[in-house]
């Protein structure tokens, strides 16, 4: 046996609730050599996590491994009994889940959970395990390696927790570690620390890894080989440089192309002297008890001003917790501001949505990040889109049916989709319905709160293209809130950088190469690039990192 992992012709089936059997993995084969990191990349539903989990002999409920061989370290995981597999898990193969926050037990200390593997498999006495854990904490460059084990999971940050779950996986000295999108939920500035830590530990220990991700740029930094999956089949496999420089398969090219979104052409017809559509002055909002000065205890948005001109787009960018979503909710009146003015279309708006007039509400629409929760799961698409038509425009049934057709055409969805429910649509389709509902109101301004963050790269790029087209046709303005610089860059005329509830800087996309404010510098330099040498070559100003990075 030459390779640590040899998967041959793997087949996995799932059973739907009507008893129909669907093959979700259709004959996948892959090899992983000792000490090598292989990335599984593909959009959601491509089967990348299913393949990764099968390496542990695990199939999620309702799924079944029906064919093929999964040889890991000379043992066929598909043929072993559950008891034999359990013996290998944690010692031969370990798993790092996507959401470390959801995978830790909130009522036990971190150390107890990290050394649990050694206790279950009786690998070493607890004293020795603790020492080993502290070594791992140090290797993963966690702050205070001696003391962090005594804390509870909620007392450390998301990036630290993700590294701690890697420590948990590594303590049993596995030969293979499976990383399931471990940095997807993290901010770019945090992601870098986590990636660096993973890379150095894996390299030092000569451990093989499987890295599941949909982010090609992240994968480029950490993987030796890339396997591109789609629809449960391997589309293309090769070394990282091969895939990045000379991708042969159209789907891989599409993935690569989504990385370089076309810059929006500045509006020629947008006259410079146009009145601003929305102006907000010194708006402050937050949470907690209101103090004597009328301001809340915790200010999520602190004295922010901005201007959106007709037919132009403003991007708001910043990491999680910087107050960008609160800003969107303040403008829409969902979370009334504590101080400041909101002037929309020449008129001062009430701070709370409930006090605004119906027309004011209609002209400003908000689209939320998660289409799953923004669409009522109990209603068909037709009802969802036609409600604003009935509510704002008092259309009769016939007119509504016609308009729903037009709106579905506008967002490039087949008309037959109107009878379906949200749960029967894909993520991208749901987001389009979400957007069609906002369009149904005939708004002047649409606030987009991270609308592409929950989507796959290729799908997100298509949604952005759609937004641009609709803007050309309908003369809309967008406020585009995101943590993803490339998305904002692709669609916005002006970009506002937020940090800690305050506006740090406002720049045009052309000025992105040379931001003036140190935080913008750190943020922009942290966005991963497709170049595989980027992470190793990245030098960050340590002062900036200590000042702004949430390690």
């Amino acid at each position, binding site marked *: 046996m030459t390779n640590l992992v040899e998967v041959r012709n793997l087949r996995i089936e799932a059973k739907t*609730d009507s008893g129909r059997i669907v093959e979700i993995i259709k004959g996948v084969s892959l090899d992983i050599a000792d000490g090598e990191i292989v990335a599984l990349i593909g959009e959601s539903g491509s089967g990348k996590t299913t393949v990764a989990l099968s390496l542990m002999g695990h199939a999620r409920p309702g799924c079944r491994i029906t064919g093929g061989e999964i040889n890991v370290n000379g043992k066929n995981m598909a043929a072993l009994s559950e008891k034999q597999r359990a013996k290998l898990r944690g010692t031969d193969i370990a798993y790092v889940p996507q959401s470390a926050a959801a995978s830790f037990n909130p009522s036990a200390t971190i150390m107890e959970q990290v050394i649990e593997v050694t206790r279950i498999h009786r690998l070493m006495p607890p004293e020795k395990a603790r020492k080993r854990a502290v070594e791992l904490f140090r290797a993963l460059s966690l702050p205070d390696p001696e003391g962090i084990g005594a804390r509870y999971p909620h007392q450390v940050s998301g990036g630290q927790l993700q590294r701690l779950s890697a420590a948990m996986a590594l303590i049993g000295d596995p030969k293979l570690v499976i990383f399931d999108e471990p940095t997807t939920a993290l901010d770019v500035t945090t992601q870098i620390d986590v990636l660096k830590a993973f890379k150095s530990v894996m390299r030092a220990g000569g451990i093989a890894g499987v890295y599941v991700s949909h982010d090609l740029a992240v994968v480029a930094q950490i993987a030796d080989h890339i396997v591109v999956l789609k629809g449960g089949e391997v589309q293309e496999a090769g070394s990282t440089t091969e895939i990045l420089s000379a991708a042969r398969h159209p789907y891989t090219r599409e993935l690569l192309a989504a990385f370089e979104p076309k810059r929006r052409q500045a509006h020629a017809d947008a006259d410079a002297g146009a009145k601003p559509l929305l102006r907000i002055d010194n708006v402050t909002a937050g949470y907690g008890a209101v103090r004597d000065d009328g301001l809340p205890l915790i200010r999520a948005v602190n004295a922010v001003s901005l201007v959106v001109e007709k037919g132009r787009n403003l991007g708001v960018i910043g990491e999680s917790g910087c107050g960008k979503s609160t800003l969107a909710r303040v403008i829409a*009146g969902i979370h009334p501001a504590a101080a400041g003015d909101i002037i929309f279309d020449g008129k001062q708006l009430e701070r709370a949505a409930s006090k605004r007039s119906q027309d004011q509400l209609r002209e400003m629409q908000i689209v939320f990040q998660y289409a799953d929760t923004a*669409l009522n799961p109990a209603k068909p698409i037709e009802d969802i889109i036609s409600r604003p038509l009935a509510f704002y425009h008092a259309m009769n049934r016939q007119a509504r049916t016609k308009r729903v057709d037009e709106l579905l055409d506008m967002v490039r969805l087949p008309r037959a989709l109107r009878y379906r429910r949200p749960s029967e649509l894909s993520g991208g389709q749901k987001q389009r319905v979400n957007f069609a509902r906002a369009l149904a109101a005939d708004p002047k301004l649409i606030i987009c709160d991270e609308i592409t963050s929950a989507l796959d790269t290729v799908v997100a790029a298509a949604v952005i293209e759609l937004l641009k087209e609709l803007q050309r046709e309908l003369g809309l303005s967008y406020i585009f809130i995101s943590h993803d610089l490339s998305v904002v860059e692709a669609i916005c005329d002006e970009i506002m950088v937020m940090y800690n509830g305050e506006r740090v800087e406002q720049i045009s996309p052309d000025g992105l190469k040379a931001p003036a404010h140190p935080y913008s510098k750190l943020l922009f330099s942290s966005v991963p690039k497709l170049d595989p040498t980027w992470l190793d070559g990245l030098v960050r100003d340590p002062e900036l990192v200590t000042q702004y990075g949430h390690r």
Partner: protein
Amino acid sequence: MTMARAAASRRSLLGHSYNVVGVVASLVILAWTLIAIFAPYIIPHSIGDIVDDDYFGPMRQALWLGSDYLGRDMLSRVLMGARYTVGISLAAVFIACFSGVVLGMVAAVTGGWFDTCLSRFLDAMNSIPSKLFGLVVVAAVGSSIPVLILTLAVIYIPGAYRFARALAVNINTMDFMTVARVRGESTAYLIGSEVLPNIIRPVLADFGLRFVFIVLLLSGLSFLGLGLQPPLADWGALVRENIGGLPFAAPAVIVPSLAIASLTISVNLLIDNLPQKIRDRDA
């Protein structure tokens, strides 16, 4: 394992999958409902007539279910009893669930003072033991069908309210509620169109469960002599008046007990085995 077994006994029809247990349970409920509606036309004897020479007579050709402690036809009395048990319980559970669910959804959607005051008031109501409450009301105003219905409804409103509110609070945090609010929708639209469709299944299950509770409470009250007054009798009252037949193993005491059991167990089984819509459409 349970999943595999459930899947094996499921049949599909009209885009829904059915379970054999659920079908049998619904047939039992349907039978009792039909009996409740048509009882006056199908009973062989009037419920007050003494038709047997002996009391606690055995089952035989002439009297299928024997006779009661006065020698009246047991079959007729059980069939008519279905009318009162099912009718009163159904009316009470409708009032209880309708008011409870509407109040619960409104409280969850409006929040604030309305929610706090209503919740505390209904919690206080909930703390009164139900049988005791029933005893006090019936002792104070006397027993009649409307009084029984209202008392039973009032006893079960707080539970329905709590249940619906807990479900609606979860729905209320969803983004589509925010979208509807920012659109300027009224509370009536919010609860009727956005919240209700999402909680209707558990609410229906709760409806069934509460129906069972009410049947049992009504039977309990009747057993204590506070329910329907003679010669009318619901199933609880039938058990009580024939309890003297227990040493003789008379069918008169067993049959109404079986009737109560068959109805309540069927409702419970139906709730657990409601037909499920098959979401996998492109099969």
